[in-house]
């Protein structure tokens, strides 16, 4: 181990969440809250002239937009948090050595999961009818003029074993179960990490690999189902068989960008000296590759719907492409999430230099937020949506909230898996 004199890295380092960093995050939070408040006030006062009675005699209220924003950010930041844990588990399942110094950075995103779960359940009960059309009980009543046989056919997926149109017990149980188990696995990974830090030895690595494998199986199923539940069910009539993957791909790119940005931030603060351009290059490759993977899924979904032209499927894209509000964002979405990373990150140098990667990661984080914006808003707000003060404010509030929780969690534990058996290998990572 000591034959190369250069590798005397400080393994006992711990992230110091300084008051200055906290203050700058808090500043963003306050600015976000002010913008959000301004947006709410404007929506309350200016929202009076909405065209009532257009969609089934249902007038638009300003708070629906607030709920939609809560939901977009809930889903988006839950994704970033769980992808941190997922990418951590992948490293063990793949027996990867290069990523060892980044393991704790990945895992730290899981600190957001409990908050995300509480916010998700709370927002669901708060918004209910305003976000989810399928929660209306009249849809399931055959004697009601608004009875909807298609939604009635899907009703069991939400309400089983209770009667359709009552309490969506199956939906809620899934939500609680997914968050519960995700948090459980996150805690388990942390517990094994702690034991490894204290006692050392290879047995913890093997233990972690088994738990990772279980988590990955569970995540494969739960990520897909949560995408149907939380996002696809908004457009209740519509369905797409690859929607789960598509949401996962969007989550994954956003999560990778967040991991990379946090790594570059920590390096800039003088931590993680063993992380060099080769590690950054690998993260860049993941972002590049999975941006293309996201595009592949986005386009696969689009092309089949476009080509087959079945009304019940194409309504999803017609709703978005023909809308004045969302039409342009479809192209912004493709531009930011495909053309930008594809062209900018294509060269080796762009992936190795922090500046480019920082820029692309920041833009991609916004880009994938727009992706979720396009999934949630058209089906909930229709032409009353858009990107305005409320959207910007809510994104900043959530983003800085996540940053506070994640960095606060990161500061609690050793920053480096100091007894990891592959730490030495990662020092020599060279590509």
């Amino acid at each position, binding site marked *: 181990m000591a034959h190369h004199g250069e590798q005397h890295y400080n393994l006992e380092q711990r992230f110091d969440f300084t008051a200055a960093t906290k203050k700058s995050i808090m500043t963003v939070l306050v600015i976000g809250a002010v913008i959000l408040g301004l947006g709410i006030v404007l929506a309350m006062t200016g929202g009076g002239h909405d065209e009532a009675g257009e969609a089934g005699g249902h007038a638009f209220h300003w708070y629906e937009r607030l709920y939609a924003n809560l939901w977009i950010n809930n889903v988006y930041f839950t994704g970033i948090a769980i992808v941190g844990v997922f990418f951590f588990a992948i490293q063990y399942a793949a027996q990867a050595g290069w990523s060892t110094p980044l393991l704790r950075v990945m895992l730290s995103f899981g600190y957001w999961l409990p908050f995300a779960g509480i916010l998700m359940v709370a927002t669901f009960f708060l918004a209910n009818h305003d976000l989810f059309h399928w929660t209306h009980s009249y849809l399931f009543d055959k004697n009601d003029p608004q009875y909807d046989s298609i939604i009635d056919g899907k009703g069991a997926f939400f309400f089983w074993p209770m009667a359709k149109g009552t309490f969506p017990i199956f939906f809620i149980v899934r939500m609680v179960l997914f968050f519960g188990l995700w948090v459980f696995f996150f805690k388990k990974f942390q517990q094994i990490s702690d034991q490894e830090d204290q006692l050392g030895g290879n047995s913890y690595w093997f233990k972690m690999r088994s738990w990772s494998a279980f988590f990955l199986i569970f995540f494969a199923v739960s990520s897909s189902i949560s995408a149907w539940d939380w996002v696809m069910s908004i457009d209740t009539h519509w369905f797409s068989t690859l929607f789960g993957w598509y949401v996962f791909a969007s989550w994954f790119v956003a999560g990778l960008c967040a991991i990379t940005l946090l790594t570059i931030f920590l390096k800039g603060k003088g931590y993680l000296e063993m992380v060099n351009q080769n590690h950054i290059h690998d993260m860049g490759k993941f972002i590049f590759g999975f941006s293309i993977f996201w595009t592949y899924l986005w386009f696969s979904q*689009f*092309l089949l719907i476009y080509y087959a032209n079945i009304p019940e499927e194409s309504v999803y894209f017609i709703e978005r492409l023909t809308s004045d509000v969302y039409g342009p964002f479809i192209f912004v979405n493709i531009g930011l999430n495909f053309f930008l990373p594809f062209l900018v990150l*294509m060269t080796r140098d762009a992936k190795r230099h922090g500046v480019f990667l920082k820029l692309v990661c920041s833009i991609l984080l916004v880009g994938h937020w727009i992706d979720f914006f396009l999934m949630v808003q058209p089906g909930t707000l229709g032409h009353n949506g858009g990107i305005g003060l409320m959207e910007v404010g809510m994104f900043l509030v959530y983003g800085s909230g996540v940053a506070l929780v994640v960095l606060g969690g990161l500061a609690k534990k050793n920053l480096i898996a100091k007894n990891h058996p592959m730490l030495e290998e990662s020092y020599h990572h060279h590509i």
Partner: protein
Amino acid sequence: MERDTHFILGVYEDEDVLLHAVEKVRSNGVKIHEVYTPYPIHGLEDVLGYKRSRLPIAAFLFGMLGTTLAMTMQFYMMSFDWPMIIGGKDYAAFPDFIPVGFEMTVLLAAFGMVGVFMISSNLKPWAQPRIFDIRSTDDKHIMAIDIANNSAMDLERIKEILKSSGATEINNKSFE
């Protein structure tokens, strides 16, 4: 005359010795023609001071050519040569062209890159390979030094440097 031989070959047994030898030989001002090894050695191109390959540029250009060809071909076929309405779409249904466009991009990028690589490394099927030492396909690392490139240096001095850098054998080799 000694200048009749064209190459001096240093034979090395160990890759670590070889890596240090390359550094040492180069720092003594000897220009290395090429190093032949039975398997890829990590870091060898760095110590040899090779510039990064420009193959990705060729791949990109061939890829762009593939995209352009595929798009023009489909556009010409589906909109001018034999216009067809498929699935109620326009004659120039751009999204339909993307899968073929993607495939042609990958195909031409891959073929173009392989072609350029073979031409630039003289891997033509009819090329006569110059085998410096057949053992470089077995268990020896061979460092070839072109005498013509090192005309300013004394041959004995080059051999001395090779010997002191850890070469187990020093041979002469010339080709027709």
